[in-house]
């Protein structure tokens, strides 16, 4: 699975399969992604002035988020937001947005 590769590539494989994941809510990814929708639009379909995330590849989103975290990508706010989520949560979110139309 591509996402797993992306996670492994980022050296985060160890995070997958934590206790939280085992009894996770079946809608966890959907719920987490909805916390981004205030700015990036319902299901990642943004209105003017913010980037859409729907249908972007999970790898691309994860890479962008990693760059925000490291400071490699310039940001006004995403560097602060990204640090509030675990890598596992961000992987779920990225995969969920990737699956949206």
């Amino acid at each position, binding site marked *: 699975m591509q996402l797993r590769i992306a996670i492994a590539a980022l050296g985060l494989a160890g995070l997958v399969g934590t206790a*939280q994941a085992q*009894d*996770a*809510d079946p*809608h*966890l990814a*959907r*719920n*987490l992604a*909805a*916390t981004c*929708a*205030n*700015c*990036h*639009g*319902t299901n990642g379909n*943004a*209105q*003017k*002035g*913010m980037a859409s995330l729907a249908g972007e590849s999970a790898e691309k989103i994860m890479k962008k988020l990693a760059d925000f975290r490291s400071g490699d990508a310039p940001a*006004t*706010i995403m560097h*602060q*937001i*990204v*640090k*509030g*989520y675990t890598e596992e*949560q961000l992987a779920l979110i990225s995969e969920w947005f990737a699956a949206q139309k």
Partner: protein
Amino acid sequence: MINRRDFIKAIGIAAGGTTLTGLSGLANAAGSTAKGHIVVVGGGFGGATVAKYLRMWSQGSVDVTLIERNTRFVSCPISNLVIGGLQQMDDITVSYDNLRENWGVKVITDEVTALDPDKRMVTTARHGTLGYDRVVLSPGIDFIPGAVAGLDGNEELVPHAWKAGPQTALLRKQLEDMPDGGVFALTIPRAPYRCPPGPYERACLVANYLRDTKPKSKVLVLDANDEIQSKKGLFTKAFESYGALLEYVPGSKLEGVDAASRKARLEFDEIKADVLNVIPPMRAGNIAAQAGLPLINERWVDVEWLSMEAKGVPGVHVIGDAIFPAPTMPKSGHMANQHGKLVAAAILNLLEGKAPNAAPVLMNTCYSFVDDKNVIHVASVHQYNAEKQQPLPVEGAGGVSAAANELEGKFAMGWARNIWADMLA
């Protein structure tokens, strides 16, 4: 497949006279069998979000009735730009039609006069009584009667403009009519109040307008708190940029007003203003106390965080500004929207007999304009802590803008368009 009546019996809420009336005739356009009827009280940032997300996430299988007293949504965020003359009322007003047409929400323009948690019924002023399986209260805030002597009933003379709508237009009008050399006094109540940075943004945008049009005037910010409550460093800089036009006076507790002469009586001082904008002390919207919900400090509803049900009152969920907040969680439109999604997910699980999501995350952002172009933000992320049974801010995450900047002026308007659409489109 378990039908709804069996399901209700199975989880034991049929006792107490749970009513199923009001469900027939609410079946959604797709004709699917309803799994439940949710009544949402209040169509602001919290309530509109719950209504839409319940319908979207249930694929139309849950009936949703939204009861809202205003015919159109008027946004508090961005309303300071209307007061400052940078936007019009139309720019911050959104119809409820898309909730009806795109999502099949039944939107009723009315007022809830009573809530009976045992019978699971709400009574409205004009639409009689509605039964529900679960009710979500998103009533916002109401002002505490008698908290400021001489204020009650005088909100035309001494506007608050802390609920967007006619009050916003009224305050704008008073500011326009103020002569050059006049004093615009703004009073801020003790925290917690709705929208922590809002009063400071308003002070800046009034000063921004006066600087261009009536430069001999003055903005006097009378804060009952001992310091600026949000983005302190950034607002301090912004205030300095207005020089003598803006004076900030912390520790100024308002005791009373003389509405006719627009005088504000403070603990140690009396001030005569030309425009007197009092943001009164506030508490959860009146329905919370009327329904007998548990209040902390007699003001804010005490909730269970995973379902956002009022403590000890099953089936009654409360969100938005009305709740006693988790640590560092602001009373903001953005946060109310996040509560709305948490509660929509929790209710859909509960209707299926499942526990709510045990690991919810909420995040907040408040953008504030410090002049016509430059904006500052504060952001935070709150992860649920199972041990403390509430969301806690993630250390090292969130923060504020490095400095006021024009790029975030664009993002602030992008935020507004997106969150309005996330609730109402």
